[in-house]
């Protein structure tokens, strides 16, 4: 079995039993599970970035701390900040979505 997705589905196909919930809301518990899985995947991505930084530092003949101390000003800094702002807007979209606000108003 070469595909990671196939491997994952093969594993899940063997799991048995009821899945008891702890939170009052089953949907909230599912979202928590997704968030924790993403936390783990974030750690995996962090490890990858760390490896790449170390390899680049080695290729440059510098300590990795020197690579991590690099800061950018001007256009590059603005570009980076814009990317961060966009990431936050995507992640927190639900908090500013007017449809969510309208629904809350109707409920009130």
């Amino acid at each position, binding site marked *: *079995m070469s595909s990671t997705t196939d491997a994952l589905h093969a594993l899940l196909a063997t*799991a048995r039993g009821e899945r008891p919930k702890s939170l009052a809301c089953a949907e909230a518990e599912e979202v928590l599970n997704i968030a924790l899985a993403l936390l*783990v995947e974030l750690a995996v991505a962090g490890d990858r970035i760390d490896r790449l930084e170390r390899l680049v530092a080695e290729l440059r003949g510098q300590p990795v701390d020197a690579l991590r101390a690099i800061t950018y000003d001007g256009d590059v800094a603005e570009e980076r900040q814009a990317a961060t702002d966009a990431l936050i807007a995507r992640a927190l979209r639900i908090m500013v979505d007017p449809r969510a606000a309208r629904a809350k108003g109707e409920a009130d």
Partner: protein
Amino acid sequence: MKVRDLQHALLPAACTDDRSRQQAVVAVRRFLNGNVRPRNVEVFETEGSPAFVERFGRQPQSPEEVRQAFLLSPSYRLWSAANRSAQEMIWVSVGEPIYRDLPRITAAASALSHAPERLGSLELDPGYEPSPEVADVDIHLQPGGYAMDRGEDDVVAGALYELGGNVFSFGQGIGRGDSKAAVVIRLLESDFGGFEPKRILDIGCSAGAASAAYAAHYPEAEVHAVDIGAGMLRYAHARAESLGVAVHYHQMDAASLKFDDDSFDLVVSHNLMHEIGEEKRRSMMKEARRVLRPGGIVVHQDVAIRGLPTLVHQVERDWDTHFNGEAHWNTYAMADLVADMKAAGFAAEDVQEHDLPAVHGKNRWYAISARKAA
């Protein structure tokens, strides 16, 4: 012999991301166990118990009411949901590389098990129906459970148990150099005058870590091990062969051993008592004594979850029964094991309970031992 983090031919080819994922799951579990779970009893007092009083006008009394009160605490519910999720992620983190590399693992296991120069043996019983109280449950959420057998040459249950067990243990704070067999060997040296067994039986051997460790430590001894699962035993046998140690594996029930009376010097079980019900545990203890030679020693080692001070602590510990597929967790924790050993035929003065430090890390283990009268 190390039993964790040990390299052998059956381990899946894991990429760097697999290892990162397993380490991240260990870190999540270590955080939940080290920083969040210790507050559960406190949040029972500050959230659970007051919520119960508000709803019912009185304090929770019975274990079921205390459990109900725990579940009225938002902090406890959040920990419980996260802990269940982390336990499931253990199996994802190890199951993915195992199934991905399964054709190679299966071929390697088969080659080792059938090699002409093999040191040990494997005896499966096609007529044996694995005990449903163990086989029908995904114990600690291991997908498919201990007795999963997907057909000839299948070793998935053993592979999952070994790799998942390592990720679980490291997240529990158990040291990478710890070994339950080494804890028992140290006990034999300290409390039984350096007892040197010539014939050893490991009951409920799962993926074979302890039995292989005994075979390595006592190279002159003949080591036998039994378990209910064919997939577990195929893996255990091939693993032992890969490590170059001789162990004879048998598929049979712990409560009905097919060995002669008085035929072993040392009979051990590791983390078995909490996986089986009361009746089977008592039968297992009787069988362990029956096959023990006069003068021989039995040691049943298990997790140190017994003797908690209050009902609230006991119910908190019982999370595993309800959320982690550990149906007999509380039964084991509350059992009078000394009485069971006496009922098995041991003299009261020969039975000892032990609170044992791990050989590596801060963990502790429980054990109950007895010497059969000569």
